[in-house]
């Protein structure tokens, strides 16, 4: 799976071709606008409409409930743990995979793709079967009075599982494309491994890393299926924001549900904005690196 949508979507005006007949162009543009409008823009708009149905006062009141507050705090906590851990993993995996050839490399790559192919429900289930009361480690954990499932650690683990590919999948192709010559040059000049990493590798991949972090964070904060299986839905304790939305929705408290949902929708919009900005940066960096390899003045 070389290219999945987490790769950079490329948009460049240089590829625009206007040579199709006018009516074809008009029809296709109309279909595109209509299709994206109905399928993407409409749901987005409906969230805010539903949230504000009873006025801004009721909207704001939805956030003032302690449960909502607790859910937001838990979501922030989970992503504050999951994202850094996955950044470290992503950097380590990218260094091993993009800089070395070794037996089992493809197995590792496939393993990194795995969460993309597995249903989020299964991602949660596997932890229930490992740490739950009837799972492998459940009895032992119970004896020592440790709780993983239906508690914060389980939520963190499930989130780690569904989000760990994002950083690695962004960095591996980027580092492979950049090649290791600069790092070799640094080595020849006497740099240590950490010096190479901090002074050469990290600055070179910083935008790609940021891109991965943005996607990883969006998923960590928004994950529903996997977290839903392991959380136990204990109000005020193990409810993340998406789970809180679900509970409100199932209680027919639609305004509050959509109000809290609008927070996540805003997060999605910010994510898209940042993502677009970073893509632009990365593309420019790539163009520069391509130009510097050509060996002539740009």
């Amino acid at each position, binding site marked *: *799976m*070389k290219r*999945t*949508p987490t790769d950079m*979507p*490329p*948009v460049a005006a240089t590829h*625009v*071709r206007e040579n199709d*007949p006018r009516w074809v*162009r008009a029809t296709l543009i109309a*279909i595109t606008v209509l*299709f*994206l409008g*109905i399928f993407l823009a409409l*749901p*987005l708009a*409906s*969230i805010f409409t539903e949230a504000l149905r009873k006025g801004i006062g009721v909207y704001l009141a939805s956030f003032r409930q302690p449960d909502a507050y607790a859910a937001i705090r838990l979501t922030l906590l989970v992503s504050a743990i999951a994202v850094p851990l996955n950044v470290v*993993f992503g950097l*380590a*995996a990218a260094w091993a995979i993009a*800089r*070395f*050839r*070794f*037996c*089992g490399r493809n197995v*590792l790559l496939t393993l990194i793709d795995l969460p993309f*192919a597995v*249903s*989020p*429900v*299964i991602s949660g289930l*596997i932890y*229930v*079967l*490992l740490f739950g009361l*009837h*799972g492998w480690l459940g009895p032992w954990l119970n004896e020592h009075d440790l709780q993983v499932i239906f508690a914060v650690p389980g939520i963190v683990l499930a989130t780690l*599982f569904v989000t*760990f590919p994002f950083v690695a999948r962004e960095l591996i192709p980027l580092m492979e494309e950049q090649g290791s010559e600069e790092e*070799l040059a640094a*080595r020849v000049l006497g740099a240590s*491994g950490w010096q190479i990493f901090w002074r050469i590798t990290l600055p070179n991949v910083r935008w790609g890393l940021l891109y991965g972090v943005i996607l990883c964070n969006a998923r960590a904060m*928004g994950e*529903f*299926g996997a977290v*839903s*299986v392991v959380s136990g839905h204990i109000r005020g304790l193990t409810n993340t924001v*998406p*789970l809180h*939305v*679900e509970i409100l929705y199932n209680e027919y408290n*639609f305004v509050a549900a959509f109000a809290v*949902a609008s927070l996540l929708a805003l997060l*999605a919009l910010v994510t*898209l*904005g940042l*993502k677009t900005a970073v893509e632009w940066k990365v593309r420019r960096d790539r163009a520069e690196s391509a130009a510097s390899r050509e060996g002539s003045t740009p």
Partner: protein
Amino acid sequence: MWHIGRTNSPLPGFRLTLGYSVLYLSLIVLLPLAALLAKASAASWSEFWRIALDPRAVASYRLTLGAALAGALINAVFGFVVAWTLVRYSFPGRRLLDAIVDLPFAMPTAISGIALTAIYARTGWIGQWLEPLGIPVAFTPLGITIALTFIGLPFVVRTLQPPLQELEVELEQAAASLGASRWQTFCRVLLPTLLPPLLTGFALAFARALGEYGSVVFISGNMPMKTEITSLLIIVKLEQYDYTGAAVIATVMLGASFAILLGINGLQWWFNQRHRAGA
């Protein structure tokens, strides 16, 4: 299992980074997966198949496969048009539309789920027009299909955009100079080049739809035998403390996902081979 032999790069850090990656993956992925397979294999062979082929499970497979397939097909058609338009034409709002294509990735699935339900419910923006026509959407397989279309769209568009951009102008001009009509050029020159990525995008969207949960549960209604998708069935079994049942169904789903993953890798390989041969 891992051959930690020195590779020929003089860069440092190989053992450290590979060791850390493998350890991390083992703890986060391999160990829990092993727990799943162990649980599933706790059931005897006949027990396994009894659970896996239970009518309620089979109904959920049929629904999930059917809706995922329908969603992926819709995306293949409209995703193609969207990718084509976004790459080849310039019009006001193009960049905005291009950015918004990723919305299904960025939006938490539960939020998409309740938003779609709100739109297609009997009183919703679209539902109120379809309901009088005798086309109920919410709480029907059609609703599930719509949710899976939503979730799969970016896969097709984003897989098609790069090859569409790489299409050489000369290719079309050459075809035109040889007397091909625009339609002939499209069918005989462009489509064959774009077919592999289109298939890949289709397969990716399909794979994603098979396992989708959050965006579907709200709009599906979750009636056993009618609108219960397989992911939900796993949760139902879990809530009944039927861990073995959940593990068995999950194993079946995992098997299907792996088959598709292999298929996608095969497609990519085929695509690359052709690409290389053509280059």
